[in-house]
């Protein structure tokens, strides 16, 4: 810690460590006194992990489907039964006209409809082609795509079940293997993301607001006139958040291992070291913001708009970076959370070692040193 405080030139007093210690304890008391904020700080990662782990999914199950059966014959009944018995769809009700389907779509209850034309049975038995129509609510395009492919699969299945003699030659068969995440759960993507988000929140927002608050209420002046080096004042503010953040990392990891059954595949020690590096990056960012601003609302605004949003957007955990336009892809490189996200994903899920992530680590280190350097240059002992 001492290496970047820049006061090596001064004569060393033996009581400095002690002073720092007492300041850190003071800051801790400040933080611990605000119960509501504390509760949210520790509750946030828990709730986020639970929501991401258990509530959010793209799984298709029991989707309401309307079947507009204009044929009303044996084959159409069989097909209807087959669809109703699959675990993906539940039959909503039978409707008779196209207009009724449309109004159901507008109520937003139903996402797709299958229209079976007249003479379906007759066509099938006489070897003619029958045309089915699938009507989809495509306001969510991806969902529509997935629903469409599930329904198609059922229809094709039905098709081959009524013509068992149909054996196609020259079949190209595909075997698909889902790596890292065979059950296709969202958790794998989200745990590293939640970690980046929470650390960012605690370190940047809390630190900057805590320091600026002292400026706003005027107590900063009292601290600055004390014999204690001003940089140490700031440092002592950062240390409690470092500890809180490490606690948060631990609680997230415990939750993901014991509640979500998502093991840490790589080295735990490496994961902690990288987390501490990221925490220091965030702390220096928070300190940098606090040096630049003078009111809590502005500090919050910068943290919220300038940092939280880019973190959610550009870290790659919610939205794939490669889908973005090029300028945004370039911007994403200066977001520390992006690099941390890659690192955590590599260690936790892919189980890779340091040799695969040293580049990302170096980038993070570079950003940190840059921020500390700028903060030191901008730091003024006197308040305006």
């Amino acid at each position: 810690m001492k290496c970047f405080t820049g006061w090596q030139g001064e004569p060393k007093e033996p009581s400095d460590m002690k002073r720092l210690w007492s300041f850190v304890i003071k800051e801790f008391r400040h933080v611990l006194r605000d119960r509501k904020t504390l509760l949210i700080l520790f509750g946030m990662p828990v709730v986020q992990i639970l929501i991401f782990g258990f509530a959010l999914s793209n799984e298709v199950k029991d989707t309401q489907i309307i079947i507009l059966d204009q044929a009303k014959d044996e084959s159409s009944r069989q097909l209807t039964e087959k669809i109703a018995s699959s675990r993906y769809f539940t039959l909503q009700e039978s409707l008779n006209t196209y207009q009724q389907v449309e109004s159901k779509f507008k109520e937003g209850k139903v996402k797709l409809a299958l229209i079976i034309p007249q003479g379906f049975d007759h066509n099938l038995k006489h070897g003619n082609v029958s045309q089915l129509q699938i009507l989809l609510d495509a306001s969510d395009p991806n969902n529509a795509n997935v629903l469409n492919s599930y329904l198609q699969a059922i229809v094709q299945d039905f098709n081959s079940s009524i013509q068992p003699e149909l054996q196609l030659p020259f079949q190209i068969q595909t075997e698909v293997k889902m790596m890292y995440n065979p059950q296709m759960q969202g958790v794998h993507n989200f745990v590293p993301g939640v970690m980046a988000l929470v650390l960012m929140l605690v370190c940047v927002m809390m630190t900057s607001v805590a320091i600026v608050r002292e400026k706003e209420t005027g107590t900063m002046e009292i601290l600055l006139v004390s014999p204690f080096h001003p940089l140490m004042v700031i440092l002592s503010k950062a240390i409690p958040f470092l500890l809180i953040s490490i606690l948060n990392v631990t609680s997230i990891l415990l939750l993901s291992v014991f509640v979500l059954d998502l093991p840490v595949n790589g080295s735990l020690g490496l994961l902690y070291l990288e987390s501490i590096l990221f925490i220091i990056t965030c702390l220096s960012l928070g300190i940098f913001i606090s040096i630049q601003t003078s009111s809590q609302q502005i500090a919050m605004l910068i943290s919220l708009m300038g940092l939280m949003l880019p973190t959610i957007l550009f870290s790659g955990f919610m939205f794939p970076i490669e889908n973005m336009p090029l300028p945004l892809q370039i911007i994403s490189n200066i977001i520390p959370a992006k690099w941390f996200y890659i690192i955590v994903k590599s260690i936790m899920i892919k189980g890779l070692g340091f040799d695969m992530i040293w580049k990302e680590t170096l980038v993070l280190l570079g950003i940190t040193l840059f921020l500390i350097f700028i903060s030191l240059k901008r730091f003024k002992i006197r308040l305006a």
Partner: protein
Amino acid sequence: MRTIKFLLEKEFKQIFRNKSILIMIMVMPVMQLILMPLAADYEVKNINLSVVDDDHSETSRKMINEIFSSGYFKAAGFLPSYQKAIYLIEKDKADLILHIPAGFDKKLIREKKGNVFIAVNAINGVKANLGANYLNAILRQYNISFRQELIGQNASIDRISIQTDQIYRFNPNMNYRYFMVPGILAILVTMVGGFLTALNIVKEKEVGTIEQINVTPIKKHHFILGKLIPFWVLGNVVFSIGLLVAYLVYGIVPVGNLIVLYGFIALYLLVVLGFGLLISTISQTQQQAMFIMFFFMMVFILMGGLFTPIESMPDWAQTVTRFNPMSYFINVLRMVILKGSSWSDISNHLLVMAAFAIGLNFWAVRNYSKTS
């Protein structure tokens, strides 16, 4: 009435004096609405595919050609071994591996069956699923044309007797932004309304000016109305700016009636403001208010059906979303803007929102006391 008029004058003056709040109201919605849909693009394209072709036959080459000409896939590399391809996946340079084993072509012709292997990086479930689906569909298509080449066009054996065709309603071009923009607009209006109300009142508490108001003969409901009306107006302004941006940048014109839209907003803003008011009554500092608000916003956004469909959630989570005002708002915005739903279609949503508005505001007013 006169008291409220003076209070309103005071609030508006304070709002316009504070630059940071003005930025929050004017710049944030515009910036976010422009940036977020660009970034929040779940449309799956540019899937990176690396190919390991151990077969080196004409069939395999044609197949690879077919895949890359489809436009869904980008070549991440043609590699000599499966191990090297795995390395690309580890480095996140590739999403899928297509492995064509040696002798594929011969086996396909002699034994009538040939196998190819697809390995998918499934950490991102949506992308993995769609990527594998696309690749499968292309291979199936190729299979049909390959078979026809071998046994001739009129091979009746290949006839598929049920054909399906799809109609994509409301968003025929499958533009993902049409889906995202209304949802993001819902978040923005909620955030601005909620945060501003909560922070504004708590600031008066923190700075101490609330005591000055408390000792005046201003009635409780006067004070609260004086706080709510300006932010209600601002909420409407933000929403209008948002609609304008959606039109100018993305060309989204609401299919439904604007009166329906504004009618719902008017009611919804009462819910949001009531919520902000409630938060302000239980917190002492701005920091506290901000964190509590942030916490709820996060839950609202995640459980609001913005990114993942509510129908896919487990039952307990679906029950939770019923208590999430934002999920109703996102839903209604999408319904009215994309599908053109009318009053009767959203009547349920309106009723629930009215209940929320009355409940939250009643609770907040009860909680607020002039004595501390």
